């Protein structure tokens, strides 16, 4: 099971700012190991952020996203205590969902 995401969601004016740090290798498939074998690509392909069940951001990622991906964005609305749920799926079909309350 991959490590949990670090999520911070705060109300800024009339918007909510969401900052996420995920824990993932994000292997590009371009690198070789010491024996010269290509290390297969392993990376997050989809990220969905939902506020009280409504999607507020959908992302598709390629291998160029840096290791332990960072993501930040803002959406309108959102109040203290509302639930933010984030799910990622990688190219091996592995999945992780974490949630937090807006603080």
């Amino acid at each position, binding site marked *: 099971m991959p490590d949990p995401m670090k999520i911070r969601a705060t109300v800024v004016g009339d*918007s909510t700012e969401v900052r996420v740090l995920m824990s993932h290798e994000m292997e590009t498939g371009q690198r070789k190991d010491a024996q010269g074998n290509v290390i297969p690509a392993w990376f997050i392909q989809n990220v969905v952020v939902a506020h009280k069940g409504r999607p507020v951001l959908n992302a*598709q990622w390629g291998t160029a996203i840096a290791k332990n991906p960072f993501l930040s964005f803002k959406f309108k609305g959102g109040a203290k205590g509302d639930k933010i749920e984030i799910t990622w799926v990688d190219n091996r079909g592995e999945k992780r969902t974490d949630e937090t309350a807006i603080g």
Partner: protein
Amino acid sequence: MQNMRRKVLKAGGGVALYALLVAAGWLKPGDAAAQSWNKSAFEAKTLDEALKVFGGGSSAQSKDIVFVSTPDIAENGAVVPIGITSSIPKTEAIAILIEKNPNPLAAIFEIPPGTEPAIGTRVKMAQTSNVYALVKADGKYYVASKEIKVTLGGCGG
């Protein structure tokens, strides 16, 4: 529920049918989003190819797309912060493309109404390159670019 969806997909398969089911509230849109990944665009080897697949072949240069907290020189190509803000009305999606990377398309962010067209993330860059921010707004494409110099590549072994 899960079972029925499988059958529906097998029987019909069509995107229209799927959209209809989503609209009818049978399926959560989240399910659909979690499965869509634009394989051909992400696997494109050149910028032109990626743009073509993505549908942004003819895009207008725009001053309403701004790079924020993005460096001119990145000391470490493995972690390059990129921030993109679009002030074009009805921005639906923002994509990041890095011209000199083995696969130029780095990310696509779909912006639903109510979400601000401003995103920040960190990417890997193989070498000094132009970085393109492609914005889809109201069905049209706009683009802005910025050169980022890389002193140490991010894709070396």
